[in-house]
C-alpha cells in the first residue's frame, strides 16, 4: 500500500493565553491525507488554522492531540524532514548572503557537498530564473526574487514533498504566474505540493484537491472539480457559432424540459489581460 505523502489524524492544537486563564483552539480534530504527486490546497480566512497546520506537519509546533505523518514517518522526527522542502509566508533570508551562497548554506544543512552541491545550486538558480542575480546579495532582491530564491532553497535536496505557505503573497501578477508555473512543473515531475493560499482562482487552477478550513475546522474537502461542479447544469462553449446555429439550439431547448439560464461570450481573466498588457513588445 502506498503511504500518503501527508497524513493528518485527529489533529487539535490549543494555544493557552498566559495570565488570562483562557485558550485559543487553532485547529480542531483535523483529518486529511495528501496522496503522493498531488497538489493540495489548504484554504481558509486569516486565523483559520492553515499556517498552524503546516507548522505542525513540519514539526515546528507540537500538536495538543492527534498526529501528523510525512511518508509514513512521524513528523516530529527530524529525519522525516529529509523529504520536505518548505517556503514560509513572506520569507526573509540572510540579507548578507548572495543567491548562490544562500542555496549553498541550505544545501549543506541537507547534507549536500562538493560537486553535487555546486551543480544543484546552478540548476536551481536556472530553474527559478535567477542565474543573473546569483552573485547579488539578497538585500537587493525584490519581493518576487526573494520568493523565487525561497522556492529554490525549498527544493535544494530534491524533496518529495514541498510545503508552501502563501507562496504568492505580495508578489505581482507576473511573479505570481512564474510561481504557479514552477508549481505545475513540480507536479509534472511527480513532487507532492501542499500549499496554503488566499488566491482562490490560482488554487482552482493548479490544485488537484482542496480543503477549506474555518475556525480550525475542515468544512469542505475533496477534488476541485467535484467541489465546484453544479450537478444539474451543463456548460457548452461553442466556437464560430452562427446566429442560425444558436437559434436551432434555442429551438431544440424549447422542445425539451431544459432551461437556458445564461448565454454570453466567454471572458478572459483579469490576470491574463494584465499579463498580456504588461508584456514587453518583443514578447508579444
Amino acid at each position, binding site marked *: 500500500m502506498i503511504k500518503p505523502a501527508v497524513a493528518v489524524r485527529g489533529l487539535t492544537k490549543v494555544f493557552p493565553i498566559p495570565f488570562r486563564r483562557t485558550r485559543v483552539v487553532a485547529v480542531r480534530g483535523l483529518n486529511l491525507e495528501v496522496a503522493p504527486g498531488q497538489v493540495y490546497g489548504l484554504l481558509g480566512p486569516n486565523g483559520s488554522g492553515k499556517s498552524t497546520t503546516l507548522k505542525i506537519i513540519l514539526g515546528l*509546533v507540537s500538536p495538543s492531540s492527534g498526529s501528523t505523518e510525512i511518508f509514513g514517518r512521524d513528523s516530529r522526527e*527530524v529525519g522525516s524532514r*529529509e523529504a520536505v522542502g518548505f517556503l514560509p*509566508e*513572506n520569507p*526573509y533570508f540572510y540579507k*548578507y548572503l548572495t543567491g548562490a551562497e544562500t542555496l549553498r548554506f541550505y544545501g549543506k544543512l541537507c547534507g549536500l557537498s562538493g560537486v553535487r552541491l555546486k551543480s544543484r545550486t546552478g540548476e536551481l538558480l536556472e530553474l527559478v530564473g535567477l542565474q543573473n542575480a546569483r552573485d547579488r546579495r539578497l538585500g537587493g532582491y525584490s519581493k518576487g526574487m526573494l520568493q523565487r530564491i525561497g522556492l529554490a532553497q525549498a527544493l535544494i535536496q530534491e524533496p518529495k514533498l514541498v510545503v508552501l505557505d502563501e507562496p504568492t503573497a505580495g508578489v505581482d501578477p507576473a511573479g505570481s504566474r512564474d510561481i504557479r508555473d514552477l508549481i505545475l512543473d513540480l507536479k509534472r515531475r511527480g513532487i507532492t505540493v501542499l500549499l496554503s493560499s488566499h488566491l482562490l482562482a490560482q488554487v482552482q487552477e493548479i490544485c488537484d484537491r482542496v480543503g477549506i478550513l474555518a475556525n480550525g475546522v475542515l468544512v469542505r474537502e475533496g477534488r476541485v472539480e467535484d467541489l465546484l461542479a453544479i450537478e444539474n447544469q451543463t456548460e457548452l462553449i461553442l466556437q464560430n457559432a452562427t446566429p442560425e446555429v444558436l437559434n436551432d439550439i434555442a429551438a431544440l431547448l424549447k422542445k425539451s424540459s431544459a432551461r437556458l439560464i445564461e448565454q454570453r461570450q466567454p471572458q478572459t481573466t483579469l490576470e491574463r489581460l494584465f499579463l498580456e498588457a504588461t508584456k514587453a513588445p518583443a514578447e508579444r
Partner: protein
Amino acid sequence: MSKSGHSRFSLTRIAALTGNTFTELVRLKVFYFLLIFALLLIGSSIFMAQLSFQQEFQVLKDVSLGAMSIFTSLLAIVATAQLIPHDVEERTIYTILAKPVPRYEYLAGKLGGVLLLLALSVVAMTALFLIALFVRQEMLVGVTLRQTSGLRPEQVQEAVRTLKASAFNVNLFPGIVVIYLKAALLASLTLFVSTFATSNIFTICVMVFIYFIGHLQAMAREYWLQQNSAGWIAKTFLALVALVFPDLQLFNLVDDIVAGTAIPGPLFAQTAVLGCVYISVYFFFAWVVFHGKEL
C-alpha cells in the same frame, strides 16, 4: 544513524551554521570596538609619559587586559542576544528547522559562531596589545641606552634586561585564555536567556544584571559568611545565588597578571575546567528550553 540514513549529529551542519552566524556577526560591524580598544591603548601610552617604566608597563597591562575583559564580555552578550530573536522575527528559523536539522545543532551552530568571533577578537586585541607593549619597550630601551652610556656594558645589559622583564611576561597568555573563557561562559548563558526571552533588549538587560551579580556575589558571600550572625536563611540564599549565577570573580585574574604574579598551573586548570562546565551546563539548559519551544 537513524533508519532513514539521517545522522542525528552532523559536524558539517554545525559548521555551516557556525560559519553563517560568524558572517552575520561580522556584517553587523561588531569589530568597531577594536578601534576603541586601539584608541584606549594610544591614550594610555600618552598618559604614561610621566611614569617610571615599571609603572608604565603596569598601567598598560592593566588598561589593556581590563578593556579586553570588558569588551569581550560585552561583545559576547550583545552578539548572542540578538541571534535567535532575529531569526524568529525574520522567519529564517522556519527555513532552517524545516530542514533535517536537530534543534541542538542549530543552537550549537549559533554558539559556535559567537565563540569563533570572540576568539578572533581576543587574538586581534592580544596582537594590538603586544605591539603596543613592544613599541613602548623599544622606545624605553633606547632611552635607557642613552641614559646609561657612561656605565659598564654589564650594567647596561642588566638595566635593559630588567626593563624587558617588566614589559613582557609569559603569564599574560593564561590570563588572556581565562578572559576568553569568561566571555564564552557569558555567551552560553546569554544563549540560554534568549531561548525564553521575548526580545533581545530584555536578554541584554538580564545579562547586565547577571554580570554585576556574578562579579559581586563572591564579595557579598565572604562578607555575610564572616558575620557570626549569618543565619541559615542568609546561607541558603547565598548558596542559591551561587548556584544560579556564575561566580565571575573566579575568572578575574587580571590583577595577578598585572602584578607580575605567575598564575599557578592548578589554578589555571581549575578555572578552565570550571569555565567549560559552566558553558556546557548553560548550553544544556538552552537546549531544554528550546527543544520544546513553539515557533
